[in-house]
Structures are given as structure tokens and as C-alpha cells.
């Protein structure tokens, strides 16, 4: 099957592309919109904002979420903030600068036109959220407050204490609830998407599993919006929620949606370190802490003194030393890698020696405890609850952890995948962050896609595409449902000895050791080989008790792990084929003398786009060449 990777970027100057495109898009008159049904899978910032907006416009929306309520989607856990190019602080920000910072932050591996549009609509998002009653932080004069985030020299991050994601999500959720009450959104909670249904090559429906009854259900529509987040949980331990998974996106991949840059994973520098084998997830400590916290390790290897006993001159504030102009606010990929280097040198701290300090001593001395508590109080409390250490008195210990995936299903400028009608929004797509995402930009992208992009581009698709009349009794639905049923039966029949979590944890070790913060050819080959064997073993030895037709939690989990076991291999393969270092993808073979990522623009200034070719054949790697007309490709430096 040939796939079409035309990004469909509109012609014309960068600044005018989106306006021009909106004007040229076909419209559907209000009375006709109610004749269309749209499926939105996922209710995070992308899915929630899209569902609410499409319903307001008059479409019939079917919304699906895996939790017991749309208000629980994992966007809720974002702490620090959301970027907007308002330039309220008068410090030199502009749409163009946000665009530039995002492209540079992504190490020149994203599409210019998409990123520019993202920066353009960033301001509308702030306005929209304020109007919905999001209580952003304010100054005494009543104006909105801003703070700084990594990879930028301006203050453009809007925030609501350390709960920005929660407040934005509840804003989007409240918009949804308003439209559920009006009957324009039909809400399906505790449902998991199991497959995409395509008819005549177009996405026309989904098969979902009711997680309470175990029954499979069919839903038909005129288009499908996939807003199911990222796949960081392939590592088992990540900052993602326990139910975040790759299955919906992965099943779409197997139905023809190409997967772009699967190896681009963000490892966040400030997380609470791993402390035991029983551990089920990792907890992020917001990047905003680096506004005031200083990152350091002892200069001496294996220094076992308490942090307070280590004098100033024996501390290495390595981010300030290596990156004087950005200091502790160096971007995430760079900061994570530096933490790893220090621990590899034997300077790590804490019981496992896999941690560095994030110290607020100087900030508390400068501003007083009250000011610091006002900014980060809830984060400090959370840290203390988990670790039993008080960060007002002793530095936090932090270490990088898997946090976000820049890769995802390939989409064109209209956010449509290679399957016509299947639109992919938010973290689930690959579009805007290149090889590394800047802090406070995930919330921005999810809401941009859902509020301000998809509602336009979807309208154009529906207005310009002939859509045959279909029902859920069509063969395509029966076949897709049957395929899910067969896989379920297969999982139940194995009756092996190892649990799904067992396999997931072992996969996680392969991913972290060989497809994590730094990668090399030998390691990646080892990972591919190991994951293949693990997958074979899974299908011979997994133990899933119980049966279908009820709330079988192990069965739900095993189906997700089966998909992770396939995705993990593709990530390793993608990392192996990308013979350069860029952003979060650090290949040890390709580094500068001072251990920075060394890009190869001549050979790799493209998105790697993978096409599924069947269970028994290798996926095919295609390219979308990235064209830089407005920015010059430059070596990324934060020194």
C-alpha cells in the first residue's frame, strides 16, 4: 500500500498560512452540521476541548474515556503551566519568538508551519481558558501572572499554582458537561478503544470494550478523532497515569495510520527517583521548581556526606557551569542527559546513587520561606508525602524519568493521519515538538489542536469528502469486532505462569537500558532481539485468569501489554535507523567533543514515518522531508 505523506502545508508566507487556509476551507452550514456524527476518543485537553467545541458548532459528538469520568484524563496531572505568547511581562516575547523557541527546542525536527500556527493560537487559548473560569495566578493589580520555563529566556508561562493541567482540564471538562446536558455530546465512560473501523479506506467507526461488562460495542461516525495521549508507559515506569496506554493508537497504526518518530521520547529531568521493585509509577516534580531551585552534585565521587555538610566550594552546580546563559532552566533533554552524565561519573547521591540535588536553600534565604511556599507549597508537600524528606530543610533528590512522547501517529497540516477521516490530536500525534518538547507546551498543543485547529480542518474534511451511508451492521464492523474477540480468546487460552505486569516490567528494563536517555547501535540491536523473544514468551506464558463478560482487570491489562511489546520494538528500530543525535534522541556514536547532541541535517532533517505491513513482515520506513524556509538550521546551544 502506498502511503501519501503530503503535509498539505498551505502556500504563502508563514504568517499568513493559517488565515489563508481557514478562509479556503469549506464550511458546513449550521443546519447541516447536525447531520454529522464525530467520534472523539479520549477526554484530555485535546479530546475534551475538541468534543466541547465540535458540539457547540452543532455536530453530534460521541465521546469515549477509559476512566470513570472525563474529568480524570491524565492532562490533569500537568503541574507547571501553559505557554502563551502574550508578552504581558514586556520582556520581548512574540508569536515569532515562541515559534522560534519551539523549533529550536525540538532540535529542528518539527514542521515549521504547524509550529507557527501553534504559537499563533497560543494567545487565544489563554483568553478562552480565562473566560471559562480557570483561576490563573494573578498579581495584586488583578493582571495575569507569568513565570519562566526551560528553553526560553522570556516569562510566558501562565499557571494555576502547581495544578495548571487540572484547572485547564476541568475547564475543558466543564465545557463538555455543558454540551452533554444539551444532548450534543453522548458520553461513554469506562470504555477502551480496541480497534478502528475503516470502510472504503476511510475511518468510519470504532470498536470499544466496556470495561465493566467486558462486552464489545460498535460505534459508527463520519470521522474519528483520536486524542488518546502518548505511549510513555511502554517503559512501565513513567510519570504517565496507570491507564495511559498505546493500544488505541497502535491499533490505528495496524489499520494504516503511519507512525512518525516513535523513538522521540522525553525524559523529564526532575522526577522523584525510583526506590523499589514494587514501584508502580514515577512522580514528576514540576519544571517550574527550576525557577528557584539549583541543581547540583558533590564534586567528589562517592561523597556520602549529608548535603548540608558539603561546603559551597565542593558542590558542582553543573547546569549553571555548563550552560551559563540558561543555567538551571536548560531544556529537558539537555538537563536530563547532564544528570545522567553526573551519575555515570559516580557523583550521584542518595541510597541508589541515581539522583541529583535540587536545592532551595538559596532561594529561601533570598525570598523567605513564605514566598517559596506560595509558589511551590503543594509540590513540597507532595514530595514530603512520598519521600518523608522536607524540602524546606534538605534538598530534593531528583532523577530523570519518562514523561512524554513527541513521536506519534503522523498527521498532515490538517491533523489528519494517513487514514482519511482519522484525525489525531494532542500527544497522540507527532506534529509540533520535534525531538524534544519544551515545558508548558503540551497543554498548549493539546488545547490548540482541540479548540482552534481540528474544528476548522474537520469541517473541511466533512464538507469535501463523499461519505457513504453505513451502519454498525456492515461487515467491516463485524470483522473488526471478531478480530478483537479472537485476540481476547487467545490471551485467555495461554494460561501460562507469568503475569502481564511481569512482562511489562521486563519490557520496561529493555526500554530504559537501551532505548532510554542514551542509545547505541549494539544496545538497540540487543533490545530488538530481546523484545522479540519476550513477545514470543508472552504469547506462550502469560497468565490471565478469569474470562470475558465481566470486569476482568488482568485481561484489560494484558491486551495493552501485548501492544506495548510490539511498539517497543518499533521504537528501538526507529532509534537504530536514525544515525544522528537530536533532542531527546541521543545516540552515543553521534556527539560533539563536549557531549552535546550532534545532528546530521544532511541525512536526517526528516520525520521518519513507519508503515505497518503485516504481522510477519518488517515495517517500512518512509520520510517526510522537513523544509525550513523561515529559520536557518543551526546548532542548538544553551551555553
Amino acid at each position: 500500500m502506498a502511503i501519501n505523506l503530503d503535509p498539505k502545508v498551505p502556500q504563502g508566507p508563514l504568517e499568513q498560512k493559517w488565515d489563508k487556509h481557514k478562509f479556503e476551507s469549506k464550511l458546513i452550514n449550521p443546519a447541516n452540521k447536525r447531520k454529522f456524527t464525530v467520534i472523539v476518543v479520549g477526554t484530555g485537553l485535546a479530546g475534551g476541548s475538541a468534543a466541547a467545541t465540535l458540539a457547540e458548532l452543532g455536530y453530534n459528538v460521541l465521546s469515549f474515556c477509559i476512566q470513570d469520568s472525563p474529568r480524570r484524563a491524565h492532562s490533569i496531572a500537568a503541574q507547571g503551566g501553559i505557554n502563551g505568547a502574550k508578552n504581558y511581562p514586556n520582556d520581548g516575547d512574540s508569536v515569532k519568538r515562541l515559534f522560534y523557541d519551539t523549533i529550536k527546542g525540538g532540535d529542528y525536527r518539527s514542521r515549521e508551519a504547524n509550529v507557527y500556527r501553534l504559537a499563533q493560537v497560543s494567545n487565544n487559548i489563554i483568553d478562552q481558558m480565562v473566560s471559562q473560569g480557570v483561576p490563573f495566578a494573578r498579581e495584586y493589580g488583578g493582571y495575569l501572572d507569568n513565570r519562566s520555563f526551560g528553553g526560553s529566556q522570556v516569562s510566558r508561562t501562565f499557571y494555576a499554582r502547581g495544578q495548571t493541567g487540572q484547572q485547564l482540564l476541568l475547564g475543558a471538562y466543564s465545557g463538555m458537561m455543558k454540551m452533554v446536558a444539551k444532548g450534543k455530546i453522548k458520553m461513554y465512560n469506562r470504555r477502551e478503544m480496541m480497534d478502528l473501523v475503516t470502510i472504503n479506506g476511510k475511518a468510519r467507526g470504532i470498536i470499544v470494550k466496556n470495561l465493566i461488562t467486558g462486552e464489545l460495542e460498535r460505534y459508527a461516525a463520519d470521522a474519528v478523532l483520536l486524542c488518546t495521549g502518548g505511549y510513555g508507559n511502554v517503559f512501565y515506569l513513567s510519570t504517565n497515569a496507570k491507564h495511559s496506554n498505546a493500544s488505541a493508537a497502535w491499533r490505528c497504526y495496524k489499520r494504516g495510520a503511519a507512525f512518525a518518530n516513535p523513538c522521540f521520547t522525553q525524559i523529564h529531568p526532575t522526577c522523584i527517583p525510583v526506590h523499589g521493585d514494587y514501584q508502580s509509577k514515577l512522580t514528576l516534580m514540576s519544571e517550574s521548581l527550576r525557577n528557584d531551585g539549583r541543581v547540583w552534585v558533590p564534586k567528589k565521587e562517592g561523597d556520602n556526606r549529608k548535603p548540608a555538610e558539603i561546603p559551597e566550594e565542593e558542590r558542582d552546580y553543573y547546569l549553571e557551569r555548563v550552560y551559563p546563559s540558561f543555567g538551571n532552566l536548560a531544556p529537558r533533554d539537555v538537563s536530563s542527559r547532564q544528570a545522567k552524565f553526573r551519575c555515570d561519573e559516580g557523583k550521584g547521591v542518595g541510597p541508589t546513587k541515581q539522583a541529583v540535588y535540587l536545592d532551595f536553600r538559596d532561594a529561601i534565604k533570598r525570598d523567605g520561606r513564605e514566598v517559596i511556599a506560595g509558589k511551590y507549597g503543594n509540590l513540597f508537600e507532595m514530595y514530603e508525602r512520598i519521600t518523608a524528606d522536607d524540602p524546606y530543610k534538605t534538598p530534593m533528590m531528583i532523577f530523570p524519568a519518562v514523561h512524554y512522547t513527541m513521536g506519534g501517529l503522523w498527521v498532515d497540516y490538517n491533523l489528519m493521519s494517513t487514514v482519511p477521516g482519522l484525525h489525531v490530536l494532542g500527544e497522540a500525534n507527532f506534529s509540533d515538538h520535534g525531538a524534544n518538547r519544551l515545558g508548558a507546551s503540551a497543554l498548549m498543543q493539546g488545547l490548540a489542536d482541540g479548540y482552534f485547529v481540528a474544528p476548522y480542518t474537520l469541517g473541511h474534511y466533512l464538507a469535501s469528502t463523499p461519505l457513504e451511508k453505513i451502519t454498525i451492521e456492515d461487515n467491516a464492523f463485524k470483522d473488526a469486532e471478531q478480530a478483537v474477540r479472537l485476540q481476547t480468546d487467545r490471551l485467555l487460552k495461554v494460561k501460562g505462569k507469568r503475569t502481564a505486569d511481569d512482562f511489562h516490567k521486563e519490557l520496561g528494563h529493555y526500554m530504559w537500558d537501551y532505548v532510554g536517555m542514551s542509545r547505541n547501535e549494539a544496545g538497540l540491536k540487543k533490545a530488538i532481539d530481546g523484545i522479540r523473544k519476550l513477545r514470543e514468551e508472552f504469547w506462550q506464558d502469560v497468565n490471565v485468569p478469569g474470562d470475558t463478560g465481566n470486569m476482568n482487570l488482568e485481561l484489560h491489562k494484558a491486551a495493552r501489554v501485548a501492544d506495548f511489546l510490539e511498539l517497543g520494538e518499533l521504537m528501538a528500530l526507529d532509534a537504530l535507523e536514525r544515525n544522528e543525535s537530536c533532542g531527546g534522541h541521543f545516540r552515543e556514536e553521534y556527539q560533539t567533543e563536549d557531549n552535546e547532541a550532534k545532528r546530521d541535517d544532511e541525512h536526517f532533517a526528516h520525520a521518519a514515518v513507519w508503515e505497518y505491513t503485516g504481522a510477519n513482515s518488517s515495517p517500512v520506513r518512509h520520510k517526510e522531508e522537513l523544509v525550513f524556509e523561515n529559520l536557518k538550521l543551526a546548532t542548538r546551544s544553551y551555553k
Partner: protein
Amino acid sequence: MSAGNMNLNLKIWRQPTGAAEGKLVDYRVEGVSPDQSFLEMIDVLNDQLVRKGEDPIAFDHDCREGICGMCSMMINGKAHGGYKNTTTCQVHMRLYKDGDTIIVEPFRAKAFPIVKDLTVDRSGIDKVMMAGGFISANTGNAQDGNAVLIPKPIADEAMDAAACIGCGACVASCPNGSGMLFMGAKISQLALLPQGQPESPRRSLNMVHTHDTLGFGNCTTHAECEATCPKGISIEHIARMNREYLKAAFTYYEKSRSEGGA
């Protein structure tokens, strides 16, 4: 890195479906580490059950960092274990001692029917929100974010109310099964903000009415809700809700559509 040395006796509520009878079942978990979270301790127990081919204990959870509001559980009779500003997922085993017996039950309230084991149906919370827990600002309507100034103390107080995670601990702790803390928090948040004013009377009337019809009880100021709320939400917000409701009940009149109203 090794697991710890606490041994615990658990009495956990098992109930295969909402319609079936439930009972407390005894379990023992050994080698628990004080750094383990409460849910990670149940994970270990579930792992043992699965290896024996038994049905694991069903409980709701997702983010495991205290913000999504999905985890619930009554631990020793208290919602989320009864620790200050803490959800179940953030309860750590260092709060217990070797040899302790811990009783784990689902949230119990008329408005929260049991689904399975420790999982309950909290869709009533969404239904109360649908009745008015929003500002009707359709996408694209918004003016500049700084066009309406909001004094910092007001924004901060609105944020205090907005911190609600919709977990339902307030309902489970209330002797009346009342949802007035989570509902009051939303009504109060939106009543504090200028953006929320146009719909404020309507919001309080509709939400309170819906709340009552869903089987949530009334508030008789026991304040158990405030004591167990993992986000420290104050019952002052119930007071503000009451004021909003009273004001609206006396003064608000909406013409019905047939009378020519919108």
C-alpha cells in the same frame, strides 16, 4: 531497593458485582516496605492473587499522584485513610506498623452504588456538574485574558475552591451522604469570579436541585467532609453556596420558553 519487613493483615471488601452480596475477606501481605504506597501494597496482593489464578481486587486508580481523583477506598473507616490533604494513592505504608490489621472498604453512599469490590459509580458527580458547573463561554467568544481584572485574593480564593478533584471523599465521609462540599466548591469558585456572574443564580438553583434528586443528602454541618477532603477544601464554600442559593431562590426568575423567555 529491597522490599521491607512489615507484615500486615488486611480485611478487604469483596463484592463481585453491584447486585451481589459483599463481605470482608482476610488477606495477609508480607514484606511490605515503608516507602511503598498503599496502592502498591494492594498491587503486591493482587499479584499474588493473579499468580494463584484468583480474581484480583478491583479498585479505581489512575494518576497515582493525588490529582485525578480516581482512587477512593475507606481505610480503617476513613475516606482516603483520613490523613491530612492526602488521597489514597499518596498514603504510604510508613504510616502503618508491622502487624497492623487494616480494613479496606469502598466509599459508601446512596449516590455511589458499588460496581465491584472497592470500585463505586460516582457518575452523580458528573451529573451535578452538567446541571451548571460551567461558564457558558463557547470557543472563540473570549476577550483578552487581561480585559477583566481579578484581584489576587479573589483569584486565590477561587483557586482554593477549584482545587476539588471530584473524588467523592466528602460524600463518603458525610453521615448524610451529602455532596455539598464538591458542589459548593464549584458554585463558590464560579461565583467568586466575574466571568461566572451572568449564570450564577441559575447555576446554584439547578445544581442544588439536581444534587438532591440524585440521592445525595443535605448538609447538617458535621464538617466531616472538610476534615477528610484531600485538597483541604473549606466548608466556607458550602456557606457561599447557601448564600448564592438563597439569593437566587428569592430573586431569580426566568421566563419559560412558552412565556417568551429564551
